């Protein structure tokens, strides 16, 4: 999946996560995770992010994940939406 522009999904509100996807230098995807529960769930947030990146087949992108204590389903939804928006040709 080709990332053509910067896009976001989610918010910084409590129990949500803000995901920013932008075209990157590539190859591959570089991502950064910040979380208010990084100690407890940092590993899981990273593995979910990696999983979604692999599943969507996104290439040459940077992804910023700013977690405010989102549930896993929220994180997945935000990641998928942000990636889909960034790949839209508009």
């Amino acid at each position, binding site marked *: 999946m080709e990332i053509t522009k910067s896009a976001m999904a989610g918010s*910084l509100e409590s129990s949500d996560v803000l995901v920013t996807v932008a075209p990157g230098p590539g190859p591959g995807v570089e991502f950064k995770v910040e979380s208010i529960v990084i100690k407890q769930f940092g590993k899981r947030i990273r593995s979910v992010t990696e999983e979604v990146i692999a599943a969507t087949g996104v290439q040459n992108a940077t992804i910023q994940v700013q977690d405010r204590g989102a549930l896993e389903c929220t994180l997945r939804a935000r990641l998928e939406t942000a990636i889909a928006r960034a790949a839209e040709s508009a």
Partner: protein
Amino acid sequence: MGGEAFGWEEKTLAGRAELAARAALLHSRGLTEPGDEDLILGLFDGEQLVATGALVGSVLEGIAVAEGVEGEGAAVTIVSSLIKQAVGRGMRQLFLFTTSQEAGRFETMGFSFLASTGSKGVALLEWGMNGIERWLAGLKTRTHGKPGNAAAVVVNCNPFTLGHRALIEYAASKAPWLYVFVVEEDRSLFPFKVRIDLVRRGTADLRNVTVLEGGPYIISSATFPTYFIRPAAVGGDASARAVELHAALDLALFRRHIAPALCITDRFVGTEPYCATTSIYNRMMEELLQDRDGDGPVLRVHEMPRLEKNGEPVSASKVRALIRGGDLDTVKELVPRATWEWLRSREAAPILEKIRNSDSRH
């Protein structure tokens, strides 16, 4: 509590009444309107404005939440929206300008602290994948192996004159290595590419000098927005205070991040005869970089008298004034060969034309 977020309505503030309500909200929190906003957002609870925030270029500013609704997520809602708007406009790196006391609140929203002017002053934070650490890492790959105890000068060089050359030559003779940072913001009459190219060519013979881009962290529209405003607009006490504030922030950032990363211990500066903004900057430099209580290593500041020609200081503003007046013969005496040759080139013609038709400070 969380449900209340659904009762808030967010909109772009535009009308006179809305802007007045916003000004009142900012004032009630001890803030002023930033000015030059590209976007002003407001959050309403019915008729009442409960929060506001603005985007000025790539800087989030003027963020305030009404008393009584704090802790209910209004600030987070506004900041999220501002970030989305900015990213939607293609920005990758954002800054946030706030009071030092409030800085911690924005750090929990994913902003990283850059510098402040003290616990009762103002603070600058940043957001995005390309932060200062990455920028400094990029610089370090180019400064690797250079000696420590290095010196730095920051120049705009609009355009590069014999005055800049004299300062650089002097600083380079006093230090094992000299970094010349050229202001990167493209808001001067001479484009950045031309300015830095002329500095590089005009200092190529100095073996212990490295010319670097100032990036978004040295006199940029994020660290020092008032630097780029015309002098007519910099009138009165309030704007002099704004210049001092921005100068202080710019210097705090230099001292906290840039100097330690490149092992810079000295900063050289030329006396400023014409420009009020630069002379405030120079004065603050002596004060803040040498202050023992500041954040980051103490630096030594050396001020060098301006090079004079025919009894007058050589400066870029003088050169621009001469170009404006059509006196190119005198310009030739004030600039290095590389600058002179460029001024005579075909590429220069449209820029010279622009200078003749402008009264911009830059």
